[in-house]
């Protein structure tokens, strides 16, 4: 799942793909690089200037419309917590709603159900959208995240979202400190064991930065290490800025797991 930010201020790309043309170029690029899903968002996660519904749609709708025309077969995901926005974007061709603030608007599931769209159910620690975690405490972050996600997934299914379209995401760093994110990475298998497909969004996040004391520009290797571990433990979808690098890691992990054969089987075999 490749990240496409139709934002002027997201933490890593800082507006590099802001504006419809730049965002669509980014869509073309990540699809060419082999992304199966493109996740388009119009509101950065961190606090900042207000982005209302109209502004969010102004940023995202033309990107979704353009991407739908240019790439009829790629799965288009939209990163929003607003049902009203999701509804318009699904009409424009979005296939998946990525509810990255974790069930803030319960009618989002109704929108997904109405359109036959997929839904990413996320654990953001019950934080309001665009707020930072502050001294958050979990008696057991893995157990709490897991049970919250299972409940959210079941609620989505009960609301009529297609069961094969429901994915769970522990949302590293959302409503969590870096150690919580590391624990969730270490115990990815607990989420996998729920039976719901697991999505992880690790790319260049602060928990990687705090382990290595590195800024977002220098977090690729750390991101890929966490990606490999989550993949080894059974995560299925990886929300990423760096598509080619992520794909190479995932292919290697799949080969080690025995899920994928060699691309070239020649060494010592001729």
């Amino acid at each position: 799942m490749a990240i496409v930010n139709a934002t002027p201020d997201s933490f890593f790309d800082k507006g590099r793909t802001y504006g419809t043309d730049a965002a669509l170029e980014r869509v073309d690029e990540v699809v060419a690089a082999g992304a199966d899903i493109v996740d388009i968002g119009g509101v950065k996660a961190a606090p900042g200037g207000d982005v209302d519904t109209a502004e969010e749609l102004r940023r995202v709708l033309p990107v979704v419309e353009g991407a739908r025309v240019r790439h009829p077969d790629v799965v288009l995901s939209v990163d929003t917590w607003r049902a009203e926005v999701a509804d318009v974007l699904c009409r424009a061709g979005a296939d998946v709603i990525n509810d990255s603030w974790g069930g803030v608007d319960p009618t989002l599931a109704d929108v997904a159900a109405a359109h036959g769209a997929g839904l990413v159910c996320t654990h953001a620690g019950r934080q309001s959208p665009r707020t930072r975690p502050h001294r958050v405490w979990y008696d057991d972050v893995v157990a709490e995240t897991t049970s919250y996600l299972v409940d959210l997934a079941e609620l989505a299914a009960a609301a009529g979202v297609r069961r094969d379209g429901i994915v769970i995401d522990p949302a590293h760093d959302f409503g969590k400190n870096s150690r919580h994110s590391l624990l969730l990475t270490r115990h990815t298998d607990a989420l996998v064991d729920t039976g719901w497909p697991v999505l992880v969004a690790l790319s260049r996040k602060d928990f990687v930065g705090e382990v290595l004391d590195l800024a977002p520009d220098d977090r690729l290797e750390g991101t890929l290490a966490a990606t490999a571990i989550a993949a080894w433990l059974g995560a299925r979808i990886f929300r990423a800025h760096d598509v080619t690098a992520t794909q190479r890691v995932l292919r290697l992990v799949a080969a080690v797991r025995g899920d994928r054969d060699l691309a070239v089987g020649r060494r010592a075999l001729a």
Partner: protein
Amino acid sequence: MTPTVVAFVPSAPLLVPPVAGGSASLDNDLRLACLDAVSRALESDPDEVVVVAAISTAGSWDDGHTWDFAGFGVRRRPADERPSLPWPLGIGAWLLDECGWSGGRRYVGVGDDDEPALEVTDRSVVVAVADGTACRTERAPGHLDPRAEEFDDAIADVLTGGDAAGFADIDQPLARELLCSGVPVWQSVAVAAGGSAVARAELLTHVAPYGVGYFVALWWF
């Protein structure tokens, strides 16, 4: 009755080195100021130390309890079998341990919606664990709010002036907007002071390196 000394310290988990991890040394000055304040308060040789901090539900705990920061993902090593305190009180407990305090102690948690209350004797030291706003910078937990600095400066003035009554004047709705968690603690100190004058007040530190207002101060009655 009025306590002998009140030591005001921040409620920042990163004061505790295992919580801060590899960056612990960056906050040595703040940590040393806290230890200095608590040590100097203990020089009054109190009968007991009362740690007071803001927690979600009011309650009190005896000295059979200890600090633990497992909920932040930090395991205490070596493990301690005693039951755990709510973490803000745990910060006070940790500071007392670091200062080598082996006398009596108890812990009082005050909630945002409770009437401020704190029972002490004139042989008590109070360690008040409380923070200012969390909106001092763009990277602050509550993002930048231009009103935050002025709010924190007013708290610093109250601490510098030993003006217990000044805590009663805090604009509570504004405090909530600015994510200031310390109000019920300060107001409990004011209640404990019971109108007695502060004989001497000293503000050791007033900083906000991560966008949260930290104060270290001492009041002698």
